[in-house]
């Protein structure tokens, strides 16, 4: 099955959208700034619908069949999430509106932060990162900032197991740090002997270790607490890649296992669609030692619930924040879906999902 390119079905004079007539006097446009030609297709509305419908039929997807893909957890995308994320009170909300006019959106962001803190065992969460890889970059920059803040400027090594996803080393080098690969043992876990040797040799240069748990082979790192102790003993931090967090929902909390910072993937673990390659969302959770370094702004409750009044929410920037990692506040439309997913499953439901 093939489908012509949209340009190949173009016919001069067609347009799929009717726009209103100009209702004000026209203004002059400087000639040197006006474009001469725009080589976009000319198609009717029916052409557009048929073209993209036929293209969609060339895809395999969760809605058309079983998708047993490890690591990137492809789960069913509930239809209610699509409905509520399209409510006009969310879709038409401008990010720079007065805070008083967006309290419903701020409440949703605040409680999603709270839910993720509770599920992951962390002291703080920022929903700003746009996807897992950006969550990684965020986490690595936070670890770097933590050491610099303590005046520990010589640390520049990140340990990454050889089974890790390629984004781990790429995020590390984007942060200006060095990657040191740690081999796996015969069972696919981190080789403890090699880790001890690396910690011995590079201990005072160690920023941290990036660990995916369960790892890319699907195995729970059975010695994760010992690994964390080794890294912490030489002053390093534990970064958790939450790609496989789905398996831990209600089973164990990364914060309790010794991780200092972790990214979640709302599009893997919390039922939001993969969208054929995005948009995802990669919130980052932090232990007390790293909370001040989270990217901002995050949402805080500045007036609690009371009998007389509703709570009030406001944006704040963490004290020693690494800065913002994207414009505005993150993928709000994805947050609405994940919030709904968690509200419908509750604690028991999440554990049964895992």
């Amino acid at each position, binding site marked *: 099955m*093939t489908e012509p390119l949209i340009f190949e079905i173009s016919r001069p004079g067609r347009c799929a959208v009717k726009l209103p007539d100009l209702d004000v006097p026209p203004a002059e446009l*400087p000639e040197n700034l006006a474009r001469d030609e725009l080589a976009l*297709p000319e198609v009717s509305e029916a052409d557009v619908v048929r073209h993209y419908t036929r293209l969609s039929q060339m895809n395999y997807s969760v809605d058309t069949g079983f998708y047993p893909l490890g690591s990137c957890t492809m789960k069913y*995308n509930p239809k209610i999430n699509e409905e509520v994320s399209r*409510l006009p009170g969310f879709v038409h909300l401008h990010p720079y509106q007065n805070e008083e006019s967006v309290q419903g959106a701020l409440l949703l962001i605040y409680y999603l932060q709270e839910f993720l803190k509770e599920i992951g065992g962390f002291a703080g969460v920022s929903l700003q990162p746009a996807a897992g890889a950006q969550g990684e970059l965020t986490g690595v920059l936070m670890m770097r900032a933590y050491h610099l803040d303590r005046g520990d400027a010589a640390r520049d090594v990140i340990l990454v197991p050889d089974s890790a996803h390629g984004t781990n080393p790429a995020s590390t080098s984007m942060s200006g740090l060095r990657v040191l690969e740690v081999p796996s043992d015969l069972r696919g876990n981190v080789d403890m002997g090699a880790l001890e040797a690396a910690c011995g040799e590079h201990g005072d240069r160690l920023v941290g270790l990036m660990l995916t748990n369960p790892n890319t082979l699907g195995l729970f790192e059975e010695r994760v607490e010992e690994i964390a102790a080794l890294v912490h003993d030489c002053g390093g931090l534990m970064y958790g890649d939450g790609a496989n967090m789905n398996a831990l929902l209600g089973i164990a909390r990364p914060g309790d296992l010794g991780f200092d910072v972790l990214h979640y993937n709302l599009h893997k673990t919390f039922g939001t669609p993969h969208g*054929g390659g995005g948009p995802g969302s990669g919130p980052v959770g932090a232990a007390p030692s790293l909370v001040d370094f989270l990217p901002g702004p995050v949402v805080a409750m500045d007036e609690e619930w009371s009998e007389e009044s509703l709570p009030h929410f406001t944006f704040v920037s963490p004290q020693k924040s690494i800065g913002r990692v994207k*414009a505005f*506040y993150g993928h709000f439309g*994805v947050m*609405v879906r994940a919030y709904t997913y968690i509200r419908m499953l509750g604690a028991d439901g999440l554990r049964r999902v895992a």
Partner: protein
Amino acid sequence: MPYIPHSDADRQAMLAAVGVQSIEELLADVPERVRFPDLNLPPALSEMEARWELESLARSNFAAADGPCFLGAGAYHHFVPAVVDAVLRRGEFYTAYTPYQPEVSQGTLQAIFEYQTMICALTGMAVSNASHYDGATAAAEAVITAVNVHRMKRRKVAISPWVHPEYRAVVRTYTQGMGLEIRDWEIGDQGLDDETACLVVQYPDFLGRIEDLRPLAEAAHAAGALLVVVADPIALGLLKPPGEFGADIVVGEGQGMGAGLNFGGPYLGFFATREEYVRRMAGRLVGQTVDVDGKRGFVLTLSTREQHIRREKATSNICTNQGLVALAAAVYMAALGRCGMRQVAELCYHRAHYARQRIREIDGFSVVDDGPFFNEFVVRCPCPVSEVNEYLLAEWGIICGYDLGRDYARLDGHMLLCVTEMNPREEIDMLVAALEEVAA
């Protein structure tokens, strides 16, 4: 339990097949001390209750659908034709995985290939990638690309102060470990030298101004630096594309093309460049090829730049990008096409000029006349901008402008107003009447 298909009998059969008695037995590797935490989450809701809760949250906001909106500053209230969401709602698109397996992803791949081609047409560049998270991260990746083009030998980055303040902040966040020197630069300033990797400007700039970019391209190129242009794709329906002015990398926020305001995301970063920089470019790229039978097909290409293969030597770490939002932009560009894109831009342009002329006539308000502009302009207010905004929202139900004093001390008391095709003449006249009331 919603979304979980297995019955108890199914579970027993699966446990028997792997030879264990209970699910708990499979979790023996999890340290007992932390196993099975009691999660303190609110009780689960039915679908009906969840819908009510979300509807009540959405209703408690005052959104751009509830009254006229003249707020822009990087996020724009543009019209989204119904065909866009009709396509996005197809499960075959939105529930598909990222297109690693071309044989089951031809729909996504061809749509992204067409998206890339249309972005090239709009920007006047030779190659476009498959997307970035938003305009700000695309700008940061453009800076990193420029530094990589010079093989890390040039460490200075010059940025116009009239690039979106949040984009400049994201460039700083992204590059904080790279040892770069990032500073403000405007035409007339010295210091574009042989250590400068790139000059970054915005078109229209943060204040809405448009100018001939050729002198900037010449200044950058004379120093051997790249010109990075952050562009508004809606404006490009009418304006000369940055490629014609000599830009080396064109990035921007694609939200205006089919993605709603959505309180700031998900949006769409687009990224286009010259052919010679394609191997230094960040992100994914879809290319056209032929299969074993000679039929046309599409694949992710030049992935040796990417982290899957190059790991720590990759051109960037981006993996999941904005596939579905790029699809929305593709459908938007196709649906509006050659004529519609120009019509939308013209409506924005002419209505914004009408609004500025009307506001200029109000005693107490003045407009800052600073040459040609597209659909945003600066207004000096007789009182703090926050007071104007609060009054217009409370008394008129109007979402008014952006307070420029937030980012520029010298623009305290100045407001950035935005007019789009969503603001008919009656709304503009209403805005003028409301501002007259403030001035009185």
